[in-house]
């Protein structure tokens, strides 16, 4: 990496889409077209979004590197920066620096089945790896996506599901903790549905993301199904500032989530203390 | 006195009059002491009291979530405990105050007697549940001579003095964190919405922090000097806390920590209050 590592690329918002009540998806494009072409990342990495006059915050890429004519982020309104981002309009200027962190090791998973398990906004972190796998489907066998939320209202990326399902050997399983009128999919918690679906651990990698309580029970289910800890992969979230292991806040033991993570296998996490 | 203190605390803990006891123990050399937390009655042998016991242990009363505490207090620290009781942080009956007679404490940095100890009215503690030792109170009243002297300076001189002081400030917040009455769980200095102070450190922002902190502790600060002695770069915060004490006395005839039932000056009023300076 050369040059000033803190200096962002200047980008403009080219599209805004409302996903749910407090989540919006933003598409950004660099002002410098050449830089946009050169800018590449791998599914699982994250970027730091700069709001000039407000500050910086970390977000994960929502689109895969195979669709890199723009950068997309799904942003939930929770803090100072994210609240300010929600105020922005198409054409507004932001800064982007990155990409940072490690990625999902798809190159190691060629020829395997992929099982994605997501809960609530956790799908935002998995969208990029899902779409990457779908775009390079020839490298993988079956893809199963299990996604649940509190209610049908809280599902993100509803409009993407039909596109995803169209890809050969891809299965979408949707569930809601509580159904609603017209809901044709499953009703129940994600771990229970996972048990019902009963995926085989043979040649399969499970990629999970969601609220901590869901992760806990999904892990238990997966282990019961016969998945080994290194077949389970997740991505962690922690307060980050710099993005490259210098500012000292996102460490779990000697590992920095921003530099050595955010993607970890359960085999790695098992040995780490519960401080994330 | 150490022996007496140890025995007393052992007794309080054994008889379950207190769950925890807070006292002093030796720190890294013979000139330093640090707070000691005693849970086990057999563990009291490390407790000491000497002229290096500078910390105000009243600080920990709001930090420990325990029902019954025993705390070793110098006469001046008792004012802090009373002030916290007045602020309803805990009940009087839940804290056993062990007053220790004190001939003054030394600043570990300069090895000099603290200025507040010179004309001390409470060398022999008042209002404690148990009192150990004997000391003779000063006959002279508390002196505000240095504050009066400082007040005579022009505003430009004062500004220059404080600018120099706050240039040194590294905003480590030691002053705030050792302050027994600065117990807000969410200090204004840490809030981001609205943001009064960013992490950016410069003399101006540092001064803003200290001004607001001083304003927040007015009528509550017992002038215990914990902040002054904690400052790693020796900013004379005592000059400010003493001013607060003087103002409370002169403007409202109020002394914080004196009475557990009093209304602090800014949360009450009198219809006959002076308004000479208001147009």
């Amino acid at each position, binding site marked *: 990496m050369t040059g*000033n590592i803190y200096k962002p690329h200047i980008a403009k918002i080219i599209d805004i889409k409302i996903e749910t009540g407090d989540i919006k998806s933003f598409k950004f494009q660099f002002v410098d077209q050449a830089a946009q072409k050169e800018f590449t990342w791998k599914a699982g990495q994250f970027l730091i979004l700069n709001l000039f006059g407000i500050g910086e915050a970390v977000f994960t890429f929502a689109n895969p590197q195979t669709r890199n004519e723009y950068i997309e982020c799904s942003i939930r309104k929770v803090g100072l920066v994210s609240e300010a981002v929600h105020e922005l309009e198409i054409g507004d200027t932001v800064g982007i620096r990155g990409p940072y962190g490690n990625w999902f090791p798809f190159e190691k998973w060629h020829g395997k089945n992929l099982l994605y398990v997501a809960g609530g906004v956790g799908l935002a972190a998995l969208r990029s790896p899902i779409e990457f796998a779908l775009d390079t489907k020839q490298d993988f066998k079956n893809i199963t996506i299990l996604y649940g939320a509190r209610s049908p209202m809280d599902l993100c990326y509803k409009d993407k599901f039909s596109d995803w399902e169209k890809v050969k050997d891809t299965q979408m399983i949707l569930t809601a903790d509580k159904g609603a009128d017209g809901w044709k999919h499953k009703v129940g918690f994600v771990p229970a549905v996972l048990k019902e679906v009963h995926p085989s651990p043979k040649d399969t990698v499970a990629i999970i993301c969601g609220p901590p309580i869901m992760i806990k029970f999904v892990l238990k289910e997966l282990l019961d199904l016969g998945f080994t800890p290194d077949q389970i992969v997740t991505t962690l979230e922690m307060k980050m500032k710099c993005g490259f292991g*210098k500012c*000292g806040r996102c460490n779990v033991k000697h590992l920095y989530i921003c530099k050595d993570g955010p993607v970890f296998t359960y085999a790695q996490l098992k040995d780490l203390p519960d*401080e994330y | 006195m150490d022996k007496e203190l140890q025995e007393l605390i052992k007794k309080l803990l054994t008889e379950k009059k207190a769950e925890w006891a807070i006292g002093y123990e030796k720190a890294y050399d013979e000139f330093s002491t*640090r707070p000691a937390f005693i849970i086990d009655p057999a563990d009291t042998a490390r407790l000491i009291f000497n002229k290096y016991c500078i910390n105000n242990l009243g600080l920990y009363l709001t930090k420990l979530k325990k029902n019954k505490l025993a705390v070793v207090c110098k006469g001046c620290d008792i004012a802090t405990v009373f002030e916290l009781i007045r602020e309803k942080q805990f009940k009087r009956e839940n804290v056993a105050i062990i007053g220790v007679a004190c001939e003054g404490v030394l600043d570990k940095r300069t090895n000099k007697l603290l200025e507040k100890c010179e004309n001390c009215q409470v060398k022999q503690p008042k209002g404690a549940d148990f009192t150990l030792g004997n000391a003779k109170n000063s006959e002279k009243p508390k002196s505000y001579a240095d504050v009066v002297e400082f007040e005579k300076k022009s505003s430009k001189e004062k500004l220059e003095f404080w600018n120099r002081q706050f240039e040194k400030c590294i905003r480590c*917040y030691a002053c705030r964190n050792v302050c027994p009455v600065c117990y807000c769980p969410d200090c204004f200095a840490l809030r981001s919405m609205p943001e009064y102070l960013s*992490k950016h450190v410069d003399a101006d922002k540092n001064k803003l922090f200290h001004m607001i902190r001083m304003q927040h502790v007015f009528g509550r600060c017992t002038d215990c000097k914990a902040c002054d002695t904690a400052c790693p770069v020796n900013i004379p915060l005592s000059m400010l806390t003493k001013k607060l004490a003087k103002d409370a006395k002169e403007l409202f005839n109020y002394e914080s920590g004196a009475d557990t039932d009093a209304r602090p000056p800014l949360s009450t009023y009198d219809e006959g209050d002076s308004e000479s300076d208001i147009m």
Partner: protein
Amino acid sequence: MAYLITKENIKEVLNALIAAKTVYAPKKDAEDTVLFEKLVNASEWHGDSLLTHTTAKDKVYLQSERFFKIKKDKNGVTIEDPAEPEEIVIFGCRPCDARGFDVINKLFNWSDFVDEYYTKRMAKTTIITISCEKPESTCFCTSFAKGSPVNETGSDLLLTPLKDGKYLAEAYTEKGEKVISDNLKYFSEAAETEAKEKEAFKTASEAKIIKKLDLAAIKKLMEPAFESAYWETVHLPCVKCGACTFVCPTCYCFDITEKAFDNMNSERVRSWDTCMSEIFTRMAGGVNPRSDTKKRFRQRFMHKFNYHVDNFKEELCTGCGRCIKACPVSIDVRKVIEGIK
């Protein structure tokens, strides 16, 4: 090659340096605070205190570093880089302070990401160190592989006081050699005997350091001690201020914030931060992995003597003992890590 210089001539060299560059050296103020401050004349140099109240770290790794200015207008946003740093001299720091720079250097050059704000400033900094004659009760530099009252790590030029008011001057880098060659008239060549005298100085000085820790053994104890009940009580006196981290020559954690002047102009600023602060790891939305004080206290010691060793093969500490002195409740880092079980 080693040289000799008298104390008077050191002041002459100092004056020559002041004329050419910005020189920071220990200076005492009206409140008896000794800090590294910009000198106007060599006579202001206060060389009697062992340690300054804060380190010289903030001269290279500024407490608030202005990254760049941001200007918004109708055409978009322009980012304006700051001016290049000026050449500075840090004079009269101690071997532990100088070694602190060496420790942070590695961090800011870690992996593929080089922090150019720091490295540029470091490249323009000359560090002149003076060996410690009278270590204090808080010193424990000899516990470290490279630590000693005469250690040269991180220094460009090391001055060791010998007999008769003379100092042995040894340059370890080009920057150090340049200080000597530019002021050669004040230096004289040293003989073999003086190098021996330095050895004697080292032995005498090290003997005054009362505490030596076995850090390798401590690290072994620390690794399994994460969940130890030890942390439940040891953190109690700690008031969670940041004094220890801000006076430390090696603590480097920072925060990046934006300082807005008005709607159109702002500045990106990096400021020191402290792991003792509650908001250090608090995420937007309120989740905080190190929410309680025990966890933050543990993080500080674990980071310094365990995690950092895993990543950099050295401790994040130089044994200067400033944190012990600055701590309002006299927490002794040596006792804390020695007591781990």
